């Protein structure tokens, strides 16, 4: 039944993280719900990607994230600045809950945010 929540841990929506590359920019994409349980994997992916070059984190298919994930993203942004790497986020327009946590925390003005992946790649290539 679409939209119905399940309490069976086997059916709890576990977020997925994938990595791609476009025009020399690593793209780490989050899909589904992300929280404390996926934060370590995301941190590892971001650190690995930033060791290679500029990075885009695509949240357009992410349906939920919490402050654990915000902390990892902030850590990634700080690391990118320290290592002179470009860094940008894709928020997209699909999931209001994801945009809301950025707005409530005031972090929309901290991260370079784009609506589409192509624009984020351009921004990451231009930066720092």
């Amino acid at each position, binding site marked *: 039944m679409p939209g119905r*929540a399940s309490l069976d841990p086997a059916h709890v929506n576990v977020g997925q993280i994938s990595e791609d590359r476009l025009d020399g920019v690593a793209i780490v994409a989050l899909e589904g*719900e992300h*929280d404390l349980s996926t934060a370590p994997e995301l941190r590892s992916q971001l650190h690995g990607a930033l060791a290679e070059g500029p990075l885009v984190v695509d949240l357009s298919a992410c349906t939920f994230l*919490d402050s654990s994930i915000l902390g990892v993203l902030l850590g990634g942004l700080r690391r990118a600045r320290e290592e002179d790497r470009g860094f940008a986020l894709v928020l997209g327009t699909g999931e209001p809950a994801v945009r809301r946590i950025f707005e409530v925390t005031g972090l929309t003005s901290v991260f370079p945010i784009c609506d589409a992946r192509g624009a984020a790649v351009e921004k990451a290539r231009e930066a720092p």
Partner: protein
Amino acid sequence: MTAAVADARLCLPATAESVAVARQLVAGICDALDVPERLAGDVKLATTEACTNAVVHAYPDGARSMDVEVFVRQEELIVIVRDHGVGIAPRTGPRGLGLGLPLIAALCSRVAIQEAPGGGTEVVMTFALDGDEADGDDEGTPP
């Protein structure tokens, strides 16, 4: 509140994997109540943050359990996250951004953070169901 019978109650291991289960509980209740999408999102996020605090801070010597209780009243949805750990204490160590409690306060109509019966911490989060958006300017329970 803690003496009342909850409309829904889960006892979960205080582990990272349990946070999504608690979130699904409140999501399902919001779904059943036809809670507006934005408010349902706020309930999910605040519950996630409270559970995360329990997982990260309550049990420095190893994970035990946390309880999640949901009460539905005429105009309010109340979510309680309770641990049986070290209780309320100044934070030490570098874990986390410290955004959890401010986020909870911003998302709820009211929030109370208090010592749990028998020890530990309980976070009592109240969300108005009457259509008013949480304004986040209320710092505690009403008199």
